[in-house]
């Protein structure tokens, strides 16, 4: 369908809340449906997980150059490692799992190709599990993220988040302060760290 009522995670979560279904369902996120919806696999997983609603995963991959559901087996270690970080950070998928909603190419005609395809998908996710587990254990990324938002743990940041101050109090606080000091978001450094766990 051109406009699907469950086109992405945020749309589906809104629908479930609007119609009082949110307590009965979780989301089954498919990698290729994420890319078809103009988003990324990890974004869809993160949106579902942040809502406490990541239930299961259709583990496959699409092709950004093709506008249809190619349902290929997952082999992209970057994407699957990001997925495993989100899954581990929410303490797993059970009772859900990783379902290979994927098929071999039209030219892969032998039954043995079905084994190669699944072995590739399983090994990619297994390697990703090992990498993601180590990144999380070492807290290299989580420490940085925690630090990045640390201005909310005390002072005006904590007061804003706890609802203790409104626009008037905030304006008063700003007028008494100097200009804010910019901090680097360090994306390239973090990408290098992420890579260092992969290769």
């Amino acid at each position: 369908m051109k406009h699907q009522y469950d086109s992405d995670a945020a749309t589906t979560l809104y629908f479930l809340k609007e119609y009082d279904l949110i307590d009965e369902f979780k989301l089954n996120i498919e990698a290729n449906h994420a890319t078809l919806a103009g988003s990324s696999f990890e974004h869809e997983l993160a949106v579902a997980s942040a809502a406490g609603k990541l239930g299961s995963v259709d583990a496959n991959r699409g092709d950004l150059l093709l506008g249809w559901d190619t349902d290929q087996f997952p082999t992209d270690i970057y994407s699957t490692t990001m997925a495993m970080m989100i899954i581990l950070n929410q303490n797993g998928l059970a009772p859900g799992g990783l379902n290979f909603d994927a098929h071999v190419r039209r030219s892969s005609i032998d039954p043995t190709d079905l084994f190669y395809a699944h072995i590739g998908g399983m090994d990619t996710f297994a390697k990703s599990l090992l990498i993601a587990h180590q990144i999380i254990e070492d807290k290299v990324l989580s420490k940085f993220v925690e630090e990045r938002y640390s201005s909310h743990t005390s002072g005006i940041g904590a007061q804003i988040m706890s609802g203790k101050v409104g626009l008037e109090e905030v304006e008063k606080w700003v007028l008494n302060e100097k200009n804010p000091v910019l901090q680097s978001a360090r994306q390239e450094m973090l990408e290098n760290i992420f890579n260092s766990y992969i290769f």
Partner: protein
Amino acid sequence: MSKYFPAVAKQIQYEGKDSKNPLAFRYYNKNQKVGSKTMAEHLRFAVAWWHTFMGDGTDMFGGTSFQREWRKASNPMDRAKKTMEAAFEFFQKLGVDYYCFHDRDIAPEGDSFAKSCKNLETMVEMAKKLQKETGVKLLWGTANLFGNAIYTQGAATNPDAHIMATAAAQVKNAIDATKELGGENYVFWGGREGYETLLNTDLKKEQEKLARFLHMAF
């Protein structure tokens, strides 16, 4: 059992990252602990029935390219039974714990709704027996509410109440089948729940219908 996959003589083994054997795992070591859980417990892999056993290589420019031994019987129920034998041989040889299906993957549609239900019941019985023999489990089941031409304008959101009711009855049977097989989840995919043009669509009504449909299901 080596009927449909003779080229894979035994279960795929973990051989470590330096293995050059294309029929071995290099990283997936089922019982290896990662943190507090084994790899199998973390990953909970499932094989998708529709792609792996029903897929025939068809794409938008050409028909069947796979000649699967298990799809050769001319009688649809014989074909379904052979497909199920092949599926469980595959699960065991791959060493995977779970599978997933749509109702219409494991059992063919009959010429009436009642016949389709009967076919599903027969195949669920066979699956139950094979699950018991092999220890393979069902991760989730679902109803195929997109393949049949009656669903071209939606299943739950179809403007025709008769079609919406048919879809709901199909879901009832698919949920029963999933429960009978000890399925750990049940999935809904609204592949036809949407619209092509507002010129013929009451968007609000369709969303209400979809919500009502899901409320009926639990």
